[in-house]
């Protein structure tokens, strides 16, 4: 499903002393099947932006179009159809979990949307997110933070959405879990042409997985491009409080300290190690 924002603004607590303009005149087009990373400083409007994609928030001004569904300040009818297709994993899993057991939690969405889920499918999703099956009988509230996050992700994946919205989905996962989760999303994206909108602070992930990066600053979209192009704007990114992926920082250090030039073309660590190894072995040629 194609996603279009036309002149979208959003204001929290409009007409109160605390009025807060969180989105300002957003115009973007995200084609179906893309993997988009949304990055920006804390408070730049990322969570507000993505909550427009499944109608959790309605634009104060402008129009949001997600496939056949349209959201505007006036009319928002087909929210259920929209939400059936657009799965969303919240930043904080506590906002998402409410059932007595993980099993019930997992089946709530499918029941609500009339989606049939077999026992095997359920078990596979649980395993995909790195949980053991015995978690199904436990209460979601007695789990550790990272376990809750995994349950929240599983309960969205089980709905087989066409668009998957992820608000910092790996925050709180252990390093191996985080890696495996990103690989899982990437696999779903490739094998099922799933559209993914990922809000992330991990520039490494944005670089590695997405085909488009959307950079936000103070409620505006300030850059939207391929990650490699976005990361060429080093000075600008620093100016708006964003970091570079560690690999690109490393390449900068090699250039500065060793006068070793490597193009940042999205290399793997193996490729980097090889280039550096070659330089070491080549020697200073004395």
């Amino acid at each position, binding site marked *: 499903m194609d996603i279009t924002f036309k002149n979208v603004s959003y204001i*929290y*607590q409009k007409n109160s002393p*605390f009025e807060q303009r969180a989105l300002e005149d957003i115009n973007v087009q995200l084609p179906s099947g893309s993997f988009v990373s949304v990055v*920006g*400083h*804390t*408070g730049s409007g990322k*969570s507000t932006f993505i909550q427009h994609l499944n109608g959790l928030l309605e634009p104060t001004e402008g129009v949001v179009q997600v496939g056949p569904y349209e959201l505007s300040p006036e009319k928002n009818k087909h929210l259920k159809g929209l939400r059936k297709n657009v799965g969303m994993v919240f*930043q*904080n899993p*506590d906002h998402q979990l409410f059932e007595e057991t993980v099993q019930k939690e997992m089946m709530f969405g499918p029941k609500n949307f009339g989606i049939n889920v077999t026992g095997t499918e359920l078990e596979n999703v649980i395993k995909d997110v790195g949980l053991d099956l015995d978690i199904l009988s436990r209460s979601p509230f*007695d*789990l*550790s*933070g*990272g*376990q809750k*996050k*995994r349950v929240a992700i599983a309960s969205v994946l089980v709905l087989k959405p066409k668009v998957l919205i992820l608000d*910092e989905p790996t*925050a*709180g*996962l*252990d*390093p*191996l*879990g*985080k*890696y495996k989760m990103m690989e899982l999303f990437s696999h779903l994206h490739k094998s099922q042409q799933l559209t993914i909108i990922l809000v992330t*602070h*991990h*520039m490494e992930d944005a670089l590695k997985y997405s085909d488009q990066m959307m950079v936000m600053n103070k409620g505006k979209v300030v850059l939207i491009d391929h990650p490699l192009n976005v990361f060429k704007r080093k000075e600008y990114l620093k100016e708006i*409080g*964003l*970091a570079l992926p*560690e*690999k690109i*920082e*490393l390449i900068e*250090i*090699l250039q500065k*300290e*060793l006068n070793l030039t490597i193009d940042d073309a999205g290399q793997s*660590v*193996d490729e*980097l*190690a*090889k280039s*550096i*190894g070659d*330089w*070491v*072995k*080549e*020697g*200073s*040629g004395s």
Partner: protein
Amino acid sequence: MIEFEHVAFKYPQAEEEAIKNINITINDGEWVAILGHNGSGKSTLAKLTNGLLMPTEGSISVNGLELTEEHLWKIRRIVGMVFQNPENQFVGTTVLDDVAFGLENLGISRENMQRRIIDSLDTVGMSEYKLHEPFRLSGGQKQRVAIASVLAIMPEIMIFDEATTMLDPVGRRELIRLIQDLHKSSDLTFLSITHDMNEAILADRIIVLNDGELWFEGKPSSLLEKSDELEKVGLLPPLITDLTDKLRKNGVNITTQPLNYEELVKQLWILHSKM
């Protein structure tokens, strides 16, 4: 100083112990990072330290005070904690109130209190938001406020339980730098529960939990030497270590395990010059 002696803890409904026979000592002024897979017992360990949970076996003491009902309030004054999920921690209706709340019973003067509130909000970059309602902030902003509340109290021991997970990398770096400064300039004892390997290797010592047991305890560089075992306990080596391992496989003879790029680049330069 924090001492855990043969400490075990089991949640009432649980079958297995979340913490199993743990012995650790955290020294005054030490910065210790705690790593471990999801569900390994990190938060349980933190909650045991300030008596939010009481051990089912063994004993815990903080600055020589044994953790008992009687010493609970004294201990909570010594140990300041920022949780994974800041929402459960807010009490005030404004950011300002929230930070003030923790200071109210400390018996400090009004002016001093005000200065601490302003300073700590400044430190986390949230002064602009002092009149906002805490629960209407973005996730990362909430974490900053929760951190400011604890900074203002200036506890002797500070525990961050994944308190920086929702911060952007720059914000996180600034905070880490602040902690480093505090750590150097005062006797602050700092326990940081984290999944960020780059943050953990800045600590004086690292503890790794695995299924409620102590899996590793020692210097960051010794943990990195075990890089091929990390996956077993849900961890991955940081990029610097991954790269070092791969350079070695490429025949680059790096002898000392580098903890940062400065150290790595130095060794590379020497090797290159010798060729």
